[in-house]
């Protein structure tokens, strides 16, 4: 029996009739009401309660709500969703610990609502419930970015919201069409063979950071606060991975979209100078591996995507916590400004390096036992080109995140900065995730048991160990040999967001200018007309107008006699 089964059985006496994510959402909304210590208790208790509820629901489907002519299933557990909900709950707990003393109340509150909505998606058995939670996630995450309180964060949160509202509209259009076509709102595997399912696919992919709109991740996430980015890195993209996994397993185009994302992430991260943007690009890179595996679609590939998502949330959060500690203690984000921080922040550096090794899939870390499921799935299916690309990309991960991040932040030149370690709660959060990175790496067979179909896969063969060490170590050699080519510059790299941040801006300005000229011409004509009217009125009714003039009394006598004559003639005739 799997661990999933055992824990579900322990909790079987209790069958909650509400979506488990609701606990975190309510906790988030009520957080402002709780003062002082009681708020801290809520921060820690809510994720634990959520996790217990997640396991209590297990794979049950015990709530059916009538809505119009449809039946909603907002508490519909499935094996994959359970894994995602589990890691989302753990993430909320450790993210809460990382944020508890430093984050603004609104950020923590929005972060919990956001996390709860993500868990809501993983239990959605129908497309309407899914959509509601999907949109709450968009709002919650926007607030998390916005709560950093800077002008840049405000602008970035707005761009972020626009992109996600666009995605929401596309998704809702797809759902509406699908309901019209099939008459069912059930969320189950689809083929992208109709406009409806293609729109749904696009809606999901947009949240995964797929091309062409990948830029929102690196644009928005790094503007959040140190703890805000930790929350952001976990939920939106991984919820998208979950929905793709349930909705579109084995859809071939996902293989190529995934490969594009993998290399996009590497190239842009290599060009980047901002340490938090490097990590943001590497989210796209990692999600690319998962999207590619979903495209392959075999049981092993889907197990790989799920396991990789689980491990990825942990090590990516760990990397971002490490970068966030540096940001909090130095106020600096650019590689050109930091360096040599290992001297006074050795624990932050150590945890950052554990995260870096895990993301690079170094043996004995969580990346090694999860990502290799995906490459093995490609090999099993005889997808030679895909396999060679994924191997090159694995080496590239070590290059752009595994070495580049720790090297430029904690080593390279000595920047002269001597910041102390970050506060205890941030350190504690990092140690918990470092521990999990190593624990999963050391005991993969225990970890595989939480997957719905535990793969029969042996990560620790002599050949796999040796080949992985070679691949990564020689990638490391390439990094140091080519270091002069990677000298950091004070630059950013253009991306698709150029179209809506620069091009459309220029078009809009130009449009305003042109229409402005036309507008003022029109206004001038209108004004001339009005002035002419006023002049005429004045001429007729003004103090000297024909109707307001003082007439001589002789004139009046004349007119009176004319009237009298008229009356006499009138009465004489009739």
């Amino acid at each position, binding site marked *: 029996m799997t661990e999933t089964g055992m824990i579900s059985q322990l909790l079987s006496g209790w069958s909650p009739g509400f979506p488990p994510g609701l606990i975190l959402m309510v906790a988030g909304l009520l957080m402002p009401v709780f003062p002082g210590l009681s708020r801290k208790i809520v921060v820690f208790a809510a994720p634990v309660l959520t996790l217990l509820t997640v396991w209590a629901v297990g794979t049950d489907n015990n709530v059916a709500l009538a809505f119009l002519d449809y039946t909603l299933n907002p508490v519909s557990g499935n094996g994959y969703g359970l894994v995602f909900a589990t890691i989302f709950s753990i993430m909320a707990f450790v993210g809460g610990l990382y944020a508890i003393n430093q984050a603004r109340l609104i950020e923590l509150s929005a972060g919990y609502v956001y996390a709860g909505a993500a868990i809501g998606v993983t239990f959605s058995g129908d497309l309407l419930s899914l959509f509601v939670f999907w949109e709450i996630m968009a709002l919650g995450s926007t607030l998390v970015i916005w709560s950093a309180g800077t002008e840049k964060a405000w602008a970035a949160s707005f761009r972020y919201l626009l992109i996600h509202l666009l995605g929401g509209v596309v998704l809702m259009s797809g759902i509406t069409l699908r309901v019209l076509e099939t008459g069912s709102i059930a969320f189950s595997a689809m083929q992208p063979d109709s406009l409806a399912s293609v729109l749904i696919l696009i809606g999901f992919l947009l949240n995964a950071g797929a091309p062409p709109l990948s830029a929102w991740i690196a644009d928005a996430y790094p503007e959040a606060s140190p703890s805000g980015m930790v929350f952001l890195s976990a939920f939106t993209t991984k919820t998208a991975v979950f929905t793709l996994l349930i909705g579109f397993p084995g859809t071939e185009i996902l293989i190529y979209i995934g490969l594009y994302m993998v290399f996009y992430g590497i190239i842009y991260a*290599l060009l980047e100078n901002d340490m938090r943007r490097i990590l943001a690009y590497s989210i796209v890179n990692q999600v690319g591996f998962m999207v590619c595996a979903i495209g392959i679609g075999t049981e092993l590939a889907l197990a790989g995507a799920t396991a990789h998502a689980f491990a990825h949330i942990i090590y990516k959060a760990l990397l971002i916590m490490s970068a966030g500690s540096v940001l909090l203690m130095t106020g600096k984000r*650019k590689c050109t400004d930091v360096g040599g921080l290992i001297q006074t922040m050795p624990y932050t550096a150590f945890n950052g390096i554990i995260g870096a090794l895990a993301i690079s899939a170094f043996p004995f870390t969580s990346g090694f036992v999860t990502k290799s499921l995906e490459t093995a799935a490609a090999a*099993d299916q005889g997808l030679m080109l895909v396999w060679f690309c994924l191997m090159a990309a694995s080496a*590239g991960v070590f290059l752009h995140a595994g070495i580049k991040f720790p090297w430029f932040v904690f080593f390279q030149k*000595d920047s002269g900065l001597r910041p102390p370690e970050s506060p205890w709660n941030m350190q504690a959060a990092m140690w918990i995730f470092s521990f999990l990175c190593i624990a999963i790496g050391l005991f993969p067979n225990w970890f595989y048991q939480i997957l719905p179909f535990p793969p029969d896969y042996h990560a620790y063969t002599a050949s796999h160990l*040796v080949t992985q060490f070679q691949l990564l170590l*020689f990638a490391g050699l390439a990094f140091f040999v080519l270091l002069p080519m990677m000298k950091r510059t004070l630059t*950013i790299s*253009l*991306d698709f967001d150029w179209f809506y941040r620069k091009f459309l801006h220029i078009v809009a300005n130009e449009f305003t200018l042109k229409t402005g000229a036309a507008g003022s011409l029109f206004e001038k004509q209108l004004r001339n007309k009005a002035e002419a009217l006023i002049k005429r009125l004045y001429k007729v009714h003004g103090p000297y107008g024909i109707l307001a003039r003082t007439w001589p009394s002789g004139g009046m006598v004349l007119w009176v006699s004319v009237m009298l004559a008229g009356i006499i003639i009138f009465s004489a005739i009739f």
Partner: protein
Amino acid sequence: MIEDPHKHWLYRRSSLPWLWGILIAILVISVVPEFFIQHYTYFEDQGTTIEASFGFHAWYGFFTCAAMVVGAKILGVFLKRKDNYYDD
């Protein structure tokens, strides 16, 4: 030139040859097992066993990474802008 003895050992010039020496030693150690290990072949039916050849992962890792760095450098010529590009 006399170096500042308070400088962290990682940043002393005199440590550099040692650091390179250690890196090269690790690289050599990683290739040695190639003499004793038989690798799997995945794509034999498609006419290649290169993935199981001697030291494949070593040179493949090195050259693909070098290609990515050079590729990024070339793209950078077109894509890079000053980091205040979007600030109005």
